[in-house]
């Protein structure tokens, strides 16, 4: 196994044990990015000098006998909506291209650096995080490392693709309607969307205040848990919880999925001993409410630039923001009331079950440029429908670990959904599935 295939935990153990230097680890990853990223387009900003400096400092501290942290020498990268000291936080836009450089790293990134990580740069995304495909009009498309004719998913497409390409062991992304879970599933890596409000969003460019979350991508459950411990304070580490009772979500979460996706859910269910099915009522309307609130809050956020610089938006983003900002207040107020009602329905289900399973997407990674997809034999627009299974869940802020089932030609993501505040139960389930061989996230073969 090469250095770029090792997990963050394994790399850090080797660096701390002086089996390899942090500089060697960073050098190997830099070489891989330089060789293969021109074909994949994960990175929007390459900060190789910074990463090399951080690794050199770490090696000096290790030589001095210091305790250097859980991510010693681990190469990481972040979606380009996180503040990274010295570069403009563009959030995938042209409009913010001339913004002043960030004066400091976002606090979540700073925590990873403090734990010994080295930051290789910033990663591609859909403009202003409003999309599921990372086909960015300004920065280009990020290609899926498993099949470069296909999308990586979005909006954190660069973050997911960079991990499965072996460019970085850990990346950070954001998830408003599925932007961590969806690309994690399409690229075949693990992604964690924590409970709404769990992780501090300071120093990141917002999209929809009601639904924005930050979280990590990794190739192992251990790495996800490692980062989770570092980026939040309100859920201290302890003994892993019991998996508990697991159910498969039916109705909306089965209706429009490809049979292959439902098989992946069945494989995960079998691995967790789940036999029962349960209905999360009115998930279709939850998705509709999330859809309207997203367009409204996003449109309001960008209103001044929609007035002053409408031609500088990505054509895929602009009409949805403009239309969203012009919605009647009644719709948004009703959607926020529905959110409170829907949260109660989920709480009722969690009185009987501890984890719920659902596909991350209705299908595997679509082709780049694909406009429509088939669901139940009907042709529907691709972009708005890729997130139909993720939107109802982030709508009420539940924590989710998205795990990849990689037995087929293309990865298939499955959401392991826990009750609010129960991230560790979903992480424990992901670890169990890894041990059982159901979930794997191998680095993609490139070249």
């Amino acid at each position: 196994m090469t250095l770029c295939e090792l997990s963050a935990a394994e790399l850090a153990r080797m660096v701390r044990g002086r089996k390899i230097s942090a500089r060697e680890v960073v050098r190997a990853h830099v070489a891989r990015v330089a060789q293969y990223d021109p074909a994949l387009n994960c990175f929007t900003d390459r900060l190789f000098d910074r990463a090399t400096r951080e690794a050199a400092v770490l090696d000096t501290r290790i030589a001095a006998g210091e305790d250097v942290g859980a991510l010693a020498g681990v190469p990481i990268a972040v979606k380009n909506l996180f503040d990274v000291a010295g570069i403009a936080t563009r959030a995938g836009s042209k409009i913010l291209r001339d913004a002043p450089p960030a004066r400091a790293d976002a606090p979540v990134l700073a925590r990873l650096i403090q734990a010994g990580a080295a930051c290789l740069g910033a990663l591609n995304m859909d403009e202003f995080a409003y999309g599921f495909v990372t086909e960015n009009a300004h920065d280009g498309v990020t290609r899926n490392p498993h099949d470069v004719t296909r999308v990586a998913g979005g909006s954190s497409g660069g973050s997911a693709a960079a991990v499965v390409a072996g460019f970085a062991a850990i990346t950070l992304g954001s998830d408003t309607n599925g932007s961590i879970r969806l690309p994690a599933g399409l690229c075949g890596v693990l992604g964690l969307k924590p409970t709404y409000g769990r992780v501090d969003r300071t120093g990141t460019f917002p999209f929809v205040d009601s639904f924005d979350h930050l979280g990590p991508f990794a190739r192992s459950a251990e790495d996800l848990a490692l980062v989770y411990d570092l980026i939040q304070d309100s859920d201290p580490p302890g003994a892993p919880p019991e998996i508990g009772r697991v159910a498969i979500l039916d109705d909306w979460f089965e209706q429009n999925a490809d049979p292959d996706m439902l098989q992946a859910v069945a494989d995960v269910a079998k691995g967790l001993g789940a036999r029962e099915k349960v209905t999360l009522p009115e998930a279709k309307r939850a998705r509709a409410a999330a859809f309207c609130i997203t367009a409204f809050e996003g449109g309001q956020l960008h209103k001044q630039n929609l007035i002053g610089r409408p031609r500088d938006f990505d054509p895929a983003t602009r009409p949805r923001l403009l239309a969203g900002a012009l919605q009647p207040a009644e719709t948004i107020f009703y959607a926020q009331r529905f959110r409170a009602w829907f949260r109660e329905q989920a709480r009722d289900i969690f009185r009987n079950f501890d984890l719920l399973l659902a596909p991350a997407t209705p299908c595997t990674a679509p082709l780049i440029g694909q406009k429509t997809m088939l669901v139940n034999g009907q042709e529907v627009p691709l972009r708005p429908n890729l997130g139909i299974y993720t939107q109802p869940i982030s709508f009420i802020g539940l924590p989710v670990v998205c795990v990849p089932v990689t037995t087929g030609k293309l990865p298939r993501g499955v959401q392991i959904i826990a009750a609010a505040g129960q991230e560790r139960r979903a992480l424990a389930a992901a670890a169990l599935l890894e041990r059982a061989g159901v979930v794997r996230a191998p680095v993609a073969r490139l070249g």
Partner: protein
Amino acid sequence: MSQDEMTAYLDAASALLGLPILPEHRDEVLAAFAVLTQQARLLAAFALPEHIEAAPRFIP
């Protein structure tokens, strides 16, 4: 809502909120608004109990 009614609403809202739509963007905005309207109708067709309060609450 007919296409004409939707166009009239968008024009009125655009003027009221001071958010102009450039002529070359009108068709794409109208299409996006039609999708939103479809979703809003689906939502509005569900009768929420009266006691349900909106989710974001101000906590002093």
